[in-house]
């Protein structure tokens, strides 16, 4: 009896050790990736990749004037996926494609991890405005869509306030208006790949240039002075 108990407990102790080591190794690997990512982000690479922060901002907050997107707090899988798409030419960008190609697969993952772990820019709201009039085109499409055309609201996939949901639906909140506009036009022109289930090409086919500008302005202006909150994207 006691032998059996001893056997069980020594086995569970062994299991605990294995788990601890595994967790420890994973944590170490993550920390290593994080450091490698930080180096790429802040210093670039010897092969000629420029420091990401020189365009995307010291905290990954983006550059509204230039339309360079916010990376801080954006899901790591999403970011590394986009880097891969730049690298293989599926997503077109004369700026990003050369850098993405110069990075190794590990480098792309590491830098994505680094930016995903940065806090989103202060002031991103988790809520949409409550008093929205249909005449406010951007806010209306963002929160209600235009269902007589079969157009869902942005928030139905990108979350309240456009803070992003999970791996697949990136944040719109706090992205520069020029960036949101260029991406929506990019889907119209085929400069961005269709993405999961080819959802976005269908969406943009129902948006006019006026709609696109209005939606971009809504989300760009969504970063107000309060209600800072991280996009969680947790499974329920």
């Amino acid at each position, binding site marked *: 009896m006691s032998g059996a108990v001893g056997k069980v407990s020594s086995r569970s102790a062994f299991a605990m050790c294995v788990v601890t080591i595994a967790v420890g190794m994973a944590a170490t690997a993550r920390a290593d990736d994080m450091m490698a990512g930080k180096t790429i982000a802040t210093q670039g690479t010897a092969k000629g990749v420029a420091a990401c922060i020189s365009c995307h901002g010291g905290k990954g907050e983006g550059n509204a004037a230039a339309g360079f997107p916010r990376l801080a707090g954006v899901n790591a899988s999403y970011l590394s996926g986009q880097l891969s798409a730049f690298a293989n030419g599926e997503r077109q960008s004369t700026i990003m494609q050369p850098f993405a190609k110069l990075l190794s697969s590990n480098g792309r993952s590491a830098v994505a991890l680094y930016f995903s772990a940065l806090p989103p820019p202060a002031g991103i709201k*988790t*809520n949409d405005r*409550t008093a929205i*009039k*249909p*005449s406010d085109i951007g806010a209306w499409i963002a929160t*209600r*869509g235009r*269902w*007589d*055309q*079969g*157009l*869902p609201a942005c*928030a*139905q*996939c990108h*979350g*309240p*306030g456009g*803070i*992003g*949901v*999970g791996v*697949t639906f990136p944040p719109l909140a706090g992205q520069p208006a020029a960036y949101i506009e260029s991406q929506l036009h990019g889907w119209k022109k085929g400069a961005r790949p269709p993405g*999961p*289930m080819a*959802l976005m090409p*269908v*969406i943009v086919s129902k948006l006019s240039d006026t709609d696109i500008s209005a939606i971009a302005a809504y989300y760009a202006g969504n970063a107000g002075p309060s209600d800072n*909150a991280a*996009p*969680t*994207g*947790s*499974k*329920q």
Partner: protein
Amino acid sequence: MISQSWLSKGILIGLLAIASGAMGGITCAAEGSTPGSAPEPSAPSAAKAFAPPAEAAMPTNEFGKSIKLGEQIFTHTQEFAGKYVGNSLNCASCHLDAGRKPDSSPLWAAYLVYPAYRSKNGHVNSFAERLQGCFRYSMNGKAPPLGDPVLVALETYAFWLAQGAPVGEKLPGQGYPKLPAPALKADYTRGSQVYAQHCALCHAAHGQGQSSGGKAVFPPLWGAHSFNWGAGMGEIQNAAGFIKANMPLGLGNTLTDQQAWDVAMFMDSQERPQDPRFTGSVEATRAKYHDSPNSMYGERINGRVLGAP
């Protein structure tokens, strides 16, 4: 409560009516619109399609405030009617575009077909009583008492949406589309494949949905935070009609009828909160409330009896 007398008569029509009841019921009194040829989601095409008043036409007086509250309850149910809600869903999860969208059990069409006799509970139901059923089953919560401001506001909103529509008529777009019977019997395995390919991106691998910022974004389709076994969406034909016309969101009418039937069967063959009418026995509860090929309640799936406590 339902008298069982009609059941013992074995009236198949009665059973089918039960099957088509509930959340959809707002689909219940009438079946869906055009069997076989669900209109495009963007279908103002149907010449005589009813259009509810434009949002901008909503009055701003005291009456308008109740309309607005009803709309807010409808789209943010937890925030505006939380004490009656027991899950993560909103009314608008299944009634898209704040209850305006045809083929998504729109409020304006439901409003016209009440009061109505419902075999689900064996008496004439007012519209308010019908709304109580939504909270009890689809929202897995508690029925607000008649006269409660929540019910008053929802009824006011529905009344306003139905302005100018003919009382008593079943308008095109009412309820969920009634799909023709599938060529092949709806199948769990095929349904799981449709789910993985077309649904899991948003509703997650185990139907639990996804939330962000503390709010449900993609509604849970089964499990503890979804609708309970008494809800109309738990009946395969309702779910199939809704899915066909409306899912994946923004890509309505892209699945085949067969895919819609299969994935509806898959979704409705999962665990979910108990039917609040549970009699203490799954067999008896099935016999009394779910005796239909469109309900999987009490059936054995993957070695488990659905609905077993």
